[in-house]
């Protein structure tokens, strides 16, 4: 049982690291702000959840797990909120996605 938990936590840590790395490469290489935001929010939710879950399995039922749970809940609440606020501000500032044009009936 302990070995199974160990293997599961290692799997979660490694896959979380891979997701975080993919998100970082996407933030650096994708062509415009909105696609970069898409890559960045991947690491904010899935990568965070996998890595914190892997650590939680290693920690067992201790106070550390409670703290990790608090961190995970807080990051899951604030990450998408910050991404939404950023996209909203960028769109209000008139930043359009690449190769996109405003429809005729929408005032610029």
């Amino acid at each position, binding site marked *: 049982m302990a070995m199974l938990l160990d293997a599961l936590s290692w799997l979660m840590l*490694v896959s979380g690291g891979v997701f975080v790395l993919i998100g970082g490469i996407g933030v650096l290489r994708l062509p415009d702000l909105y696609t970069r935001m898409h890559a960045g929010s991947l690491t904010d939710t899935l990568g965070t959840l996998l890595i914190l879950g892997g*650590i939680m399995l290693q920690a067992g039922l201790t106070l*550390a797990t409670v703290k990790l749970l608090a961190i995970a809940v807080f990051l899951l609440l604030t990450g998408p909120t910050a991404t939404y*606020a950023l996209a909203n501000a960028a769109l*209000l500032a008139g930043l359009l996605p690449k190769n996109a044009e405003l429809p005729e009936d929408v005032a610029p």
Partner: protein
Amino acid sequence: MFLAASIAILVTMVLALARALIGPTVYDRILAVNMFGTKTVLLFSVVAFLYGRPDFLDLALAYALINFIGVLAVLQFFENRQQHEANQEASSNVDKPKAGDV
């Protein structure tokens, strides 16, 4: 395994810093800095267990709180500045013809 995860997070932080430096618009930079802050929280949590010091988790929790507020504050600042500039432009456009009339 903690080491592998922390190295992946560190590499991602470097990539985010590169985007923050070259980002063409200010929103790219804010996105990169936000991501850097989230990765810092993750790094704190992983390093806490890598070195066997669960006290670091308190730092991670505090950093998560500060990071979110900071990003929202910077966004609000740029929004306000843009509105202020637009208002100034509009008022100067209105003022000019009046000054010419008089």
